[in-house]
């Protein structure tokens, strides 16, 4: 179109000396952003937006004898009455209420310890704490399986050494939950501690000195000086841990497979099983959309919380 116009306005061009550069400039302005954003945008559209919407459509269908039929909200109604789905949600809730606060608390303690000026070998500590988070998932699961093995596993041998009976770590519902919570805590506490430490180190030394001059004890310094400034980082850790918990899949998939029964099943693991083991694609799609909705709601609430804090 632009080409046509410039051809038609050919005679007028002599009157105005400069139009082609101008529209070319406009064209350039409009297009250069997309030479940068284009590849990512195309990939996101193709491999994110499209499958997401395809999944939404699929959640209103069912596959019967190889024929896909529209079933409206039937899959969602089925989910509401599905005890396994509710069990998975309860497991997630338990981890959110128990594991996340314990982990953040522990991570805070470690971060404060690491931030002490008298501490030597800080880099060594940091590496030790961070190692679990960079471990390959499969390695992690193998290690925990062998350590937690009921007969002959190192943990049970240690319990035996102090006179306690063997624990059936991965096959008793309560113990399996404990093992899962313990292993998630092992893997991610140090990671959060190192992030919190970086937050602590961004607090200027003068502020501690000022607090000390004003006669503030350690507790007052902590509550009045450290906490307000660390809050955004703590919230960051909580938000990422919460989203991580809602998306929990890897750990229980390789460690317990969601069992025994459904004691360690999570919604994402359940949707994986429904989709790839039972090949019930419509139902899997419906579950995934409910998971998306839950994560969206909780993340929105948390971001609102951060926003209100004035730190964003």
């Amino acid at each position: 179109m632009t080409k046509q116009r410039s051809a038609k306005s050919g005679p007028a061009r002599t009157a105005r000396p400069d139009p082609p550069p101008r529209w070319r400039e406009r064209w350039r302005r409009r297009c250069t952003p997309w030479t940068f954003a284009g590849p990512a945008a195309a990939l996101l559209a193709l491999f994110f937006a499209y499958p997401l919407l395809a999944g939404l459509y699929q959640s209103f269908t069912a596959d019967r004898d190889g024929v896909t039929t529209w079933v409206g909200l039937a899959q969602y109604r089925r989910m509401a009455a599905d005890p396994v789905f509710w069990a998975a949600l309860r497991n997630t809730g338990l981890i959110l209420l128990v594991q996340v606060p314990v982990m953040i608390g522990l991570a805070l303690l470690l971060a404060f310890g690491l931030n002490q000026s008298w501490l030597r070998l800080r880099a060594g500590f940091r590496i030790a704490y961070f190692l679990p988070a960079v471990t390959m998932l499969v390695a992690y699961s193998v290690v925990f399986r062998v350590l937690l093995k009921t007969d002959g596993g190192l943990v049970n041998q240690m319990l035996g050494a102090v006179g306690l009976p063997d624990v059936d770590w991965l096959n008793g519902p309560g113990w399996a939950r404990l093992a899962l919570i313990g292993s998630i805590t092992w893997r991610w506490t140090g990671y959060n501690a190192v992030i919190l430490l970086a937050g602590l180190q961004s607090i200027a030394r003068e502020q501690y000195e000022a607090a000390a001059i004003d006669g503030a004890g350690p507790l007052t310094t902590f509550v009045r000086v450290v906490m307000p400034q660390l809050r955004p980082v703590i919230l960051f850790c909580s938000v990422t841990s919460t989203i991580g918990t809602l998306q929990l899949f890897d750990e229980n998939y390789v460690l317990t497979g969601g069992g025994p029964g459904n004691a360690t099943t999570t919604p994402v693991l359940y949707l994986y099983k429904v989709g790839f083991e039972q090949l019930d694609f419509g139902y899997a799609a419906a579950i995934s959309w409910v998971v998306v909705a839950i994560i969206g709601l909780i993340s929105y609430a948390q971001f609102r919380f951060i926003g209100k804090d004035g730190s964003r």
Partner: protein
Amino acid sequence: MSQAAEARSRTRGGRPRAGRALALLLLLAGALISAAPFYWMVVASTRDDSELFASPPPFLPGGRFLHNLVELEHTIGFGRVMLNSAGVAVVYTVLSSLISAMCGYALAKYRFRGRRLLLGAVLATMMIPFQVLLVPLFQMMASLGWVDTYQAVILPFLANSFGIFLMRQAFLAFPDELIESARMDGAGDLRIFYRVVLPVVRPQFGALVIFTFMTQWNAFLWPLLMLNTEDKYTAPVALYTLIGQSHVDYSGLILGSFLATLPLMLIFFLFQKQFVSGLLGGAVKG
């Protein structure tokens, strides 16, 4: 000395030392719990299974390292599998880091139609678990005939929202004047990006590269679904198929796991500062 003053002086003299000892104890215990499994992996991968589950368990490395390694090469073609992992991770890292950095640059430095939509999509991908896309993505790859190919492993997650966001934050802090003056000098936009802008944000870009490599090296579920020929397996997939076998050779499995984790540990040792600052990119917003 009054009682109160005495008590005060005791807390002054005594508490820091006791507090320090307690804090040090806590830190050491934490470090031990964090790192002990890695020492134990070294022990386990140099022993055979009967020694591993013996009572008392071994606490020092044994002499079966080479034997386990040969066995591992024999069962899963360990060398091949590690090369596959390296190839996939390197290609993915190069492409993904550049694509993410470019998108972050566009979002930070240009005003254009569709910008807000794109930014929204990037934020959405950060919150939506990728497992939600598994079934439709799998069907998509199947209908493209891409199952059991490396492009199916690499392509879907190239546009990395974490990276886009991280780089956007980095570029937001970059002064517009510098870009303008480079433009005055007649440099094209791409040239400005690669020659002027990218070198300045090298620390953040480095963090992104490290982070991306680690993510892809560890990637498990998607490669497991996509790859089904043994000689195409990446390391995590090959090791996982070992777990599924009826007779599990634990010491070999642990040796493989340890060796496959080793590159990540090395990278982390070398670049820990950058890695942490990269992670923090999302936490401390400018």
